[in-house]
């Protein structure tokens, strides 16, 4: 059964159906979107059952897409190649869960419901597609296709400065895409498929790009090629994805987009779109340019550390609750980068674990910010005090989310960060890629994280009750909000207590990643 294709096609087909339903049936669109995500969730369960951890790429679907002879430089070949491994499976399942919760969270969207849910479904397909595609061109198409729906979702349904934020988001992330496109063109013209012997076939297949022998001798990005074009290509590709992650100093689009986006879109943005950036680094940048990655490893790790500290400091200074959470995302994604840079099995596994864990926790955090915003239309931290007295269940969920995010043992965030620190500290001894002082400085980020979360708790939730909005009645969580927050809270607890559940999938990938990666990079260096 072609699980992945179904997973991508379901939202597209339902979006097409929705397109032909007249706008006046306002309430059918949310139900259609919900049906799509539930169907996807069922498929995911089947996928997890079928998946054999440690067996490499699975559920492979491969069809020819573009195959063209291009005169003097051989044949161009792009494929519809999708598959899952220990890296993509957790992220795909995460995507489906988050899309389901985002759909529930969108239930009461008032304006143009038809357009909203159609865009949400297209976004869904694009996100899942980019996590599954192993053909660079196919990936790029899905990657780009996230931008347009996101632009309209922020721009039409966002907050007061939505127009500015959406244009900024689009331009920034497109800049990243163009960097990726530049390298992609160079790469496919430098690589030939080993499956064809009689003619030169330029392939977009990422698996082929990950092997030194497939580079055409004398081509610009060949390992033995003159000049340092491979370093340039690495830098461009890395920045392309780093904008999406986002890594300081390429992060400035993120606070604006997050603050202005409606709650469900903030959730998707933080939980999934940022992961696409980190996923791109793990899937494309590092495996294809291992030599350059080693060359730049301290830069990559350094950017991670700067993101951790800078994000945390900004979060500490934020007056707006959503902005605080946005900056905490920058800080937490910095850990992912640090783990990747260490290139140890623990570091890579920790980076992937942190990606999943941050997906769950940041979704929860933005939902929490959304709960209070829905009631008072005010997000300024200083305008609240003593919320715990009026909304005790809401406060408990906030405490869970905050503690999970600051890395308290027992929650998933802890496992990810601990693994990353293992990896980063070991790196100095094993492969000497990350200088020892970097993880030491990064621990400061944990401290700052505890600082801004506890301070926010103290300011907003404890103390005497006061609120600067025009009314005094605050209702506690509704059933719909429980439905969104409870599964996420349970998931972060589950992965915090039983990390093996997730590590069984991630670890084999991380182990093969590091072993083949070093083999490749040592073989490759002349």
């Amino acid at each position, binding site marked *: 059964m072609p699980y992945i294709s179904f997973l991508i096609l379901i939202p597209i087909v339902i979006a097409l159906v929705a397109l032909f339903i007249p706008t006046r049936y306002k309430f059918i669109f949310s139900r259609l979107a919900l049906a799509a995500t539930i169907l996807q969730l069922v498929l995911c369960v089947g996928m997890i059952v079928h998946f054999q951890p440690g067996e490499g790429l699975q559920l492979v679907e491969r069809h020819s897409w573009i195959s*063209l002879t291009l*005169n003097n430089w051989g044949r161009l070949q792009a494929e519809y190649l999708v598959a899952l491994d220990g890296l993509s499976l957790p992220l795909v399942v995460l995507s489906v869960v988050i899309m389901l919760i985002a759909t529930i969270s969108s239930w009461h969207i008032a304006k143009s419901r038809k357009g909203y849910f159609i865009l949400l479904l297209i976004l869904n397909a694009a996100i899942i597609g980019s996590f599954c595609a192993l053909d660079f061109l196919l990936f790029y198409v899905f990657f780009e296709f996230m931008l*347009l729906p996101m632009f309209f979702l922020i*721009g039409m349904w966002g907050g007061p400065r939505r127009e500015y934020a959406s244009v900024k988001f689009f331009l920034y992330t*497109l800049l990243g895409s*163009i960097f990726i496109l*530049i390298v992609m063109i160079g790469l496919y013209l430098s690589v030939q498929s080993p499956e064809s012997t009689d003619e030169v076939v330029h392939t977009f297949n990422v698996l082929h790009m990950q092997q030194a022998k497939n580079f055409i001798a004398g081509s610009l990005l060949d390992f033995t090629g003159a000049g340092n074009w491979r370093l340039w290509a690495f830098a461009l590709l890395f920045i392309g994805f780093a904008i999406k992650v986002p890594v300081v100093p390429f992060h400035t689009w993120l606070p604006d987009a997050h603050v202005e986006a409606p709650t469900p879109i903030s959730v998707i943005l933080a939980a999934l779109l940022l992961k696409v950036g980190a996923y791109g680094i793990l899937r494309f940048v590092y495996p294809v340019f291992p030599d350059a990655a080693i060359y730049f490893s301290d830069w990559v790790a350094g950017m991670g550390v700067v993101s951790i500290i800078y994000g945390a400091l900004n979060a500490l200074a934020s007056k707006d609750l959503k902005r605080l959470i946005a900056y905490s995302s920058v800080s937490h994604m910095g850990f992912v980068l640090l783990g990747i840079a260490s290139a140890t099995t623990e570091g890579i596994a920790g980076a992937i674990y942190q990606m999943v864990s941050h997906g769950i926790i940041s979704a929860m955090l933005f939902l929490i910010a959304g709960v209070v915003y829905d009631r008072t239309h005010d997000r300024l931290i200083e305008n609240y005090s003593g919320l715990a007295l009026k909304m005790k269940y809401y406060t408990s969920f906030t405490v869970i989310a905050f503690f999970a995010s600051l890395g308290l043992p027992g929650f998933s965030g802890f496992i990810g960060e601990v693994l990353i620190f293992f990896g980063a500290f070991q790196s100095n001894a094993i492969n000497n890629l990350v200088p020892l002082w970097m993880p030491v400085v990064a621990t400061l980020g944990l401290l700052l994280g505890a600082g801004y979360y506890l301070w926010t708790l103290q300011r907003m939730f404890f103390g005497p009750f006061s609120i600067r909005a025009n009314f005094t009645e605050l209702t506690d969580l509704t059933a719909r909000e429980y439905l969104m927050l409870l599964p996420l809270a349970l998931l972060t607890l589950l992965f915090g207590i039983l990390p093996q559940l997730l590590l069984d999938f991630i670890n084999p990938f991380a182990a093969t990643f590091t072993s083949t990666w070093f083999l490749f990079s040592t073989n490759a260096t002349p």
Partner: protein
Amino acid sequence: MSVADAIASFSASLPRVLPEVVLAASSCVTLLLGLFLKKNKSAVLAIFSIAVFLVAIGLLVATWPQQPVSLFAGMFRADDFSAFFRLLFLTGGALTICIALQKESSTEYYLFIQAVVAGACWLAMSMHFVAVLVSLELVSIGSYILAGFAFNKASSEGSLKYFLMGSVATACLIYGASLLYGITGTFDFSSQQLADALLQSQTGFMLIAAFLILAAILFKLTAFPFHLWAPDVYQSAPTPVVAFISVVPKLAGLVVFIKLVLAFNLFGQAPINWKSVISALALLSILVGNLSALAQTNPKRMLAYSSIAQAGFLLVGVTTLDLAGIHATMFYAVAFLLMNVLVFTALHFFEKWKSLPAFTNFSGLGRVAFVPALGLVIGLVALTGLPPTAGFTAKLFVFSALWGSWTDSGQFIVLLLFVTGLLNTIVALYFYLKIPYYLFLKATPPGTASIKITFTGNLLLLILVIAIVWLFLNPGLLMGWINRITFVL
């Protein structure tokens, strides 16, 4: 050549150019129909013109030249390459008429569109400077008149500017061609005689001649530095005419440009590196077009600058001066035709509704007229070069060819063009995005009257959208066909 030979050549050539013959005949019929018809004049003429274009396309396919055939004693040549572009011009003509089916237009409007398409077809086949001059004038004079068809002050001004600058361009062409004739003794730019003479000639004269000739062609192509007429003309001319001018004369210019540059390049033995020259022209067209478009407040003026940048992208494939690049350019030309017509069709729809002197006039219209707005957005996304549209595939092909050219030659300017050209997508996105921004993100002003959306208008949009997306999903079919087209000067 004796008179008998000339007549023999003429009668042998005629069956090869049946589409052009049909267009010439139909122009006369159009004129007569316009004189004698009383009722439903424009409807009849529109349907007649579309029928003529379809017949011409049919005849072109029927007489498709498999082998290059020299026509009219070497003045023209029918081959795969020119036939491909003739097909594009005929399609462009038919689509132009389709854009404004419901509009009342005078006889001359249909007449000149047929005449310009015929001129473009001749131009595509020209192998001789005199032939280039005559067909270029046929294209130009028709375009000058069409540009004035809004019959208001601005339109007349635009038309006159176009005419004056066009005349200078023609003068340049004549001057350059006569200089070249003085150097080489021939007008036939594919001949060995021209190549031999150029190799031995003094560099300075040859360059002056070449640049004068190319100036006239760049004018048609709306490329830097001969682009200055475009904004005024685009802003003031009727939208279907702009769609037409931005596609047919431009692509006709492209064909001649490719042929002439290959002739001047002398297989790389020319005293000047044409690769760098064209790279610089492409680079500057892209930069000037895109950066000027940023500051525009009038949508059509913005599209004029975007069209200058698009000329740059069309030139990107030509810089390689080899078949791979020319094939990529041909793909780009098809995509460009489709997306440009799509954008102007949608724009024309909104213009019929209310006047659009500024982007703010689009405010909130996307909610009222969803289908045309969606068509406009897809067209603009395609022009930007984002997937899933043919615009992306076309850019991928031309820039792939450019990468190949760079790795072969190692010239810095080619790399600069590669990186700048692709990065310009972001600049382009910013100004193209203004229209979707106002269409969807801004509130609909109160009291906006609704508009009846006709089925035929939507059908044309739908066909174009499907074509653009289909070319993205399955570029193999078109590119496979293009790849079989060989082209030797």
